[in-house]
């Protein structure tokens, strides 16, 4: 496979053809903000946080879904990108009901981390306070849609890794919601194997293990890389 040489933030980096800008940057120690992307799952380019500037192209491109090309000149940080990322995170905070003070993921939340790293100190857009349900019908897990940011990691891991496809999204636009099977309560969804992968990949406190108190829910994402490595490289022993 051919190797492409490109420049990211002034640094010369190389990546195999077919690799995404996001992963190439990551390998080179360059961190790009992201929410919907998670290593080991397909990409959807939905959160728009990993948008980067590519010289000679008028549009911004999602790093997770843009393949490296020879001679590309990429910038992952700029005033414009920072402003966009900030506003996107503010929109997410305003869109759901993110009450960190009473959230199981307080302090271990990717949304919170993004806000902190982007220097957000308040949300300029109007809080929507939508009425969204909490589904506690599952024996081991709870789905609190108030905290959902629609990154769709859960439905992808359920489909692509577990193979159950219990979860999907229904409705559209601001009425989007996460559903299990035919929209019944999660606990009665026949297809669910209760594997808990969805909980581990969820960036916020939308999916959590029952019995967690405020700030207690930490997620373990290492399993995903482990499964992918096992499947693709046949390495079952963790190095």
């Amino acid at each position, binding site marked *: 496979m051919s190797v492409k040489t490109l420049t990211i933030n002034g640094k010369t980096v190389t990546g195999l053809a077919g690799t995404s800008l996001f992963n190439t940057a990551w390998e080179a120690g360059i961190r790009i903000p992201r929410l919907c992307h998670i290593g080991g799952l397909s990409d959807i380019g939905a959160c728009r946080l990993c948008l980067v500037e590519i010289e000679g192209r008028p549009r911004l491109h999602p790093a997770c879904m843009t393949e490296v090309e020879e001679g590309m000149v990429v910038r992952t940080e700029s005033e414009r990108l920072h402003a966009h990322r900030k506003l996107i995170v503010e929109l997410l905070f305003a869109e759901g009901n993110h009450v960190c003070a009473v959230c199981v993921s307080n302090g271990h939340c990717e949304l919170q981390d993004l806000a902190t790293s982007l220097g957000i100190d308040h949300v300029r857009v109007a809080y929507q306070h939508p009425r969204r349900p909490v589904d506690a019908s599952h024996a081991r897990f709870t789905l609190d849609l108030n905290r959902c940011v629609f990154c769709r990691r859960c439905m992808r891991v359920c489909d692509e890794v577990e193979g159950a496809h219990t979860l999907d999204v*229904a409705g559209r636009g601001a009425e989007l919601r996460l559903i299990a099977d035919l929209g019944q309560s999660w606990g009665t969804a026949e297809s669910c194997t209760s594997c808990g992968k969805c909980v581990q990949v969820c960036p916020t406190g939308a999916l959590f293990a029952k019995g967690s108190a405020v700030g207690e829910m930490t997620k373990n994402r290492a399993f995903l890389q482990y499964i992918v490595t096992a499947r693709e490289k046949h390495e079952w022993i963790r190095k």
Partner: protein
Amino acid sequence: MTQPPPSGRAPPATKDNRQKLFERAMSRQAYAGHALIEVLHTAQELFGHLTPELLREVALKLKLPPSRVLGVATFYNFFSLQPKAEHTAVVCLGTACYVAGAPQLVQALERRRCACAAADADKEAGPARLSVQSARCIGSCGLAPAVVLDGRILPRVSAAQLERELDKIGITA
């Protein structure tokens, strides 16, 4: 909306042969998963709305995850998971109709709908008498403002005319 797309080929549906017609429609699509939208169109045409049982059957026959079937069924405006009202009025809210006064027509219809609902409040639960919907553009901009009442286009309609039409079908104030 005007009537959902006609499958064209199907003979008239009766209560007894609906299931058969539905099965035939799926078979004509070779039970292919990518025919999901066509199959949902047919299901709604035959049964009026998409019940959980129907969605379950579609998922089973087309070999699709149920959550995906529901995800698709709820994405499109055309599909309804609720029983239809006895009468349907669709107000076109396309730009031409909007500037020609469609919002007033919506108000007039809503008044009637509320009056009916209030009158029926103590009756047994059944489908609503009138459903008021809006369409993004029915493509009859030359006839603005337009309302589609039970599948029939009322061109350049005023609120007063609309109310007379409602009187005719028994949706009285």
